[in-house]
């Protein structure tokens, strides 16, 4: 049943890639990058989830279980959740740097159209 999460992550990645490939506005391109980052978080947490598991916190275990029973395999994978946390923080930093570059481009070229930025024309 978790396959639905994988398919949704792939669909989100494809939406972001469509925005990056077809839009001409630079801010829309950075929005597409944000959507692709969001698909990455979704895929990482879907990999971390196991069937009928809860959060990897051993305090107050549910359904009258003990903490040892919970640690035997009823929790999600904490390593992938940590990787996802790092990815979120790096994602906001990348977006901030991209937007700063776009503001400089707009001050220099007086446009936001990616076809009119002449310095990168190959």
């Amino acid at each position, binding site marked *: 049943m978790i396959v639905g999460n994988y398919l949704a992550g792939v669909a989100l990645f494809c939406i972001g890639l469509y925005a990056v490939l077809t839009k001409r506005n630079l801010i829309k391109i950075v929005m597409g990058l944000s959507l692709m980052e969001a698909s990455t978080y979704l895929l990482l947490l879907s990999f971390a989830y196991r069937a009928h598991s*809860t*959060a990897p*916190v051993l*305090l*107050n275990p*549910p*359904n009258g279980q003990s903490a040892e029973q919970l640690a035997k395999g009823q929790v999600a994978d904490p390593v992938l959740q940590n990787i996802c946390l790092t990815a979120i923080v790096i994602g906001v930093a990348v977006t901030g740097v991209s937007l700063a570059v776009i503001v400089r481009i707009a001050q220099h070229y007086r446009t936001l159209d990616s076809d009119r930025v002449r310095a990168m024309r190959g």
Partner: protein
Amino acid sequence: MTTIYGAICLAEIVVMVPLLIRLALGPTVSDRIVALNTISTQAALAVLFFAAFAQRPIYLDPALWLCSFSYLGTIVWARFLERGLL
């Protein structure tokens, strides 16, 4: 009792559907901010009831964050709108 909590969580998420439609076709930015404000309130309620459904009190803290920070964002965007930055 957990079944009732799950049903309430499901209903609070279903309420988001007309708000998402208004978010998609709202004519001005202010309409979208109103829809977004209500969406975050419904999300906080859904988080509370999902915590009661899964019987984990550790899930309750994101609801507090969602409440306080969503209103902070709404007030900040209203201030942007008033100064003409938006």
